[in-house]
Every structure is written in C-alpha cells, then in structure tokens.
C-alpha cells in the first residue's frame, strides 16, 4: 500500500452553523440585506464634507475644555441631574418592592402575578425618552417630569429582577421559616429578604448608575438635568462647553461605577 492512498483525508475547522443550506442561506440573506440597506441609505456627502472642519473644531475643543465659561449653568444642570438620580432611584425601588413581590410566581397568587407582570411589561417597553415626552406634557417642564420618568423606568427594571431573584431563591429556607409558624410579613422579612438582599443592593447601585446616565439625556426633551445644558451648548456650537460637560458626565459615571463596585464587594 502506498502512502498516497491513505493520506487524502484533510481536517477542516467545523463551522459555527452545522447545516450547510442554513449557512449558505444566511450568508446570502446577509449579502442581499446589506446591498438593500446600503443602497437605500441616503447620505448627503456634501453636508458630511462641510461638517468635517466642524468636527475637527469639536475635537480641538477638548484641549482644553472650557469649564468656566458656563460654570453656573453646568453646575446647576449637574446638581439637577444628581438630585433626579437620587430621588428617582429611591422612589423607584420603593415602588418596585411590592410589585416585584407580586410578580414572583412562587409567592404570589395567579391574579396578582399577572397584574404585576403586566405593570412591569408596560414600564419596560417604553424608552425613557418617550416616557419623558409624555411626563413633560403632563407635569410641565423641569426636573419633576424627569424624576417621574426615571422612577417609572426603575420600577420596570428593578421589579423584574427582584421577581426573578425571588423565584430563584432556596425554597428550603422559606419552608423552614414557615414551619416555625411565622406570619406572611415575618416570612417575607426573615426567609425571603435575607436571600435576595445582597444581590438587590448591588442592582440598586447599578440602577443608580443607569439613572444618572439617563438623567443626562431626558433634558433634551425638557425634563431637566444636564441634558438641556448640553443640548443648548451643541445648538449654539459652543463646543468647548459641550466638551466640558461630556468630560464631567464621563467622570461622574466612572466615579459611580467604581464606587458602586467597591460597595458591592463590601456588601457581598
């Protein structure tokens, strides 16, 4: 027997999608989609070209950014954003606790479960900015509308995660507390709460972080916070102030992220 007779088998990498027809169909579909999408995207290249020096001016504005020119407006916006963040996180979490308890399948009756799940689904399906438009219409311009928006969004986020965490808890502990003859409130307090608490504190801090980022944008539609200041700075082409605001936002987000990571490690 010659070597050539046994050698022709060659190894090939196994593909991500095993079925060849699906692989080819997907590839072809992606190509057709890309052609269609790129073909129908209207781009005004003349305007893009015109804007490039403006972009360069914007990046130049970062070196150095102008913190002092609009210091009063920036400080006011940042304080407004931060107070919106604090109030909406506290109020949102306070509201989401009963709703989250009601939306956990293992502790709530079916009627309550579907009702609470419905509330969570509604509050999660809207973008913060769309909610903000409506709350501005209802409550008038200003941080109150923003705080309500963020509280509403917090309920959807926190309530869902709380409900899921309760559903994943250890039933043995809950059973043991119930066996001592504890009432419903005692049962929640001593069996459910200690099990979900460490994770929920972490998620509360994470939501604080999200709320601050969002509070920076709801101002664009008039719901208070630093977003309004930023929007104005861009519209007046005051890139140096805009750069300062962006750097402050990035700084605060990083600060909150690091400190919340630290607190989370300390709690758990």
């Amino acid at each position, binding site marked *: 027997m010659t070597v050539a007779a046994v050698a022709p088998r060659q190894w090939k990498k196994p593909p991500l999608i095993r079925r060849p027809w699906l692989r080819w169909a997907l590839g072809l579909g992606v190509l057709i989609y890309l052609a269609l999408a790129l073909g129908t*995207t209207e781009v005004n290249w003349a305007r893009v070209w015109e804007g490039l020096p403006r972009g360069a001016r914007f990046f130049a504005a970062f070196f150095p950014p102008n913190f002092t020119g609009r210091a009063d407006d920036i400080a006011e916006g940042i304080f407004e954003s931060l107070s919106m963040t604090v109030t909406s996180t506290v109020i949102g979490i306070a509201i989401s606790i009963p709703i989250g308890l009601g939306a956990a399948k293992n502790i709530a009756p079916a009627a309550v479960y579907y009702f609470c799940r419905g509330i969570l689904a509604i509050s999660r399906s809207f*973008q913060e900015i769309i909610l903000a438009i409506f709350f501005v219409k209802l409550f008038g311009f200003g941080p*109150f509308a923003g705080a309500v928006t963020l509280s509403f969004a917090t309920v959807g986020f926190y309530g869902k995660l709380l409900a899921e965490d309760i559903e994943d808890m250890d039933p043995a502990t809950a059973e043991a507390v119930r066996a001592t003859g504890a009432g419903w409130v005692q049962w929640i307090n001593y069996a459910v709460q200690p099990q979900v608490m460490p994770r929920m504190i972490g998620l509360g801090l994470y939501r604080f972080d999200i709320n601050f*980022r969002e509070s920076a944008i709801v101002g664009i539609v008039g719901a208070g916070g630093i977003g309004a200041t930023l929007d104005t700075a861009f*519209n007046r082409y005051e890139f140096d102030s805009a750069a300062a605001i962006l750097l402050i936002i*990035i700084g605060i*987000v990083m600060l909150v992220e690091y400190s919340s990571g630290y607190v989370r490690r300390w709690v758990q």
Partner: protein
Amino acid sequence: MAVELRHGTRVWHRRERGAELAIWAIWLAGTAMFVYCCQLISDKTIWPFVADATAQAADLAVRMLPPDWGFIGALGRPLWDTLNMATLGTALAVTLATPVAYCAARNTTPSVALVRPIALFIIVSSRSINALIWALMLVTIIGPGVLAGILAIGLRSIGFCAKLLYEAIEEIDERQVEAVRATGATGAQVTTYGIIPQILPAFAGISVFRWDINIRESTVLGLVGAGGIGLPLNASITTLSWTRVSLILLIIIATVILSEWVSAKVRHAII
C-alpha cells in the same frame, strides 16, 4: 454574636453596638440627602402644572384615540431606516469592538502597561455616553440623517460589545491555546484555531443581544434629527397630531417586541 446584659438577663442583638450605630448613621445621611434632593426638585417645579396632570392625561387620551391608521403608509420608510440604523450600527460596532476587546483582554493584549489602558478607556468613554448624546454630537458635525444615526449607534455599542467580548476572551480555556501553540502554530494561527472558535458563540450572542437593544435605541434617535421613526414622531408631537403619535408608539412597541422575540430565538439557537 452580640449579647448585652440588661437587668441581669442576657439580651440577643443582631449586631454589635458600633455596627448598629454606623448603620443608623448611614441611614440618617441617606435620608437627609434624599430629602435635600426632593427639596431641590420641588423648588424647580411649578406645582399648579403638576396638580392638573390628571386632567391633562384625560385630555391627551381623548386626543390620541383612535390611532390615525391612514398614516401607516408613510411610516414604512422611516421604519426601514430605523432597522438599518440598528443593524448597520451593530455591524460597525462589533467590527470595531473586536480589536479593542483583543487589546483589552489580559491574556491576548500586546502590552498590559500601554495598550490595555487605552482599550479600557475607549470602552469606558463609549459606554458612558448615551446613543442620543452621540447622535446630538454627530448631527451637529455631519448633518442630520441616517448616517449620523448609524455612527451614533455604532459608537455607543463599541464599549458594550468590547466589554462583554473581552470578558469572554479572558474566560477561554488556556489549555486549548497551549495545545495549538505546541503544534508549532504562529501567532495568527493560534488566534484563528485556538481563540476564535472558543469565543465565536459568545460573539454571536453579544451581537444579537446588542442588536435588540439598538433597535430600541434607534427608535428615538430621530428626536435629535438622526433619522428613523423618531423623525415622524417628533414631527407629530410638534404639530400636536396626537392620533399619529399613538400610531407611531404602537408601531414602536410592536417592533421592540418583535426584535426581542427574534433575539431570544437566535440566542437560544446559539447557546
């Protein structure tokens, strides 16, 4: 265990006295801060406007119903643009995020001291600025339109994708990489045969997950002029044609639910 002697009997406490006081102080400071913040917001609120919110809501409900179904024909194009912004933006983001993630992962980065901090800075700054702010910036620079939306979605998603991807790269099984290297493979071959097959499922999952989020975000980018279904939404709100607003909102919800369903299906198929 904290036990205190009181009137000759031992009383059990959950915590030591010091810890008890510290927790009390934290609660006090937190409450004070909360009240102060409420005060700050309350000072800037015009309460008569808040008081008639129920009347406003009832009025709005009357004006929004029924949705103006005749307008649906004009929404096809903006919806297509929204879809394109999300999809092309995600494609742009994952393309750019891959090298960033490669540089940020501790086990693949060319230099821990120099390249890794730069990659991490890119990730953090991309993540901390919302897509809407990126759009605001890009609209003033390159003009309104779909391109600004695609770039905004892309720039915002780089950080998210790169962060998840570099965590996936750091969690790979080093033994497989070692085995490929032991066959005498070059650096590029180690990457293609040792690392990429291990992170490909995570990569696909991350892309689809981010695509789903991006559909949600691209629906509102039009509010600052970056194309998509947000443009007719903004126009309808400014002209107070609330029946059109309600129709657009219904379509947005339907799109978001559909994209969530698609993404859940695809991720289920991958994992």
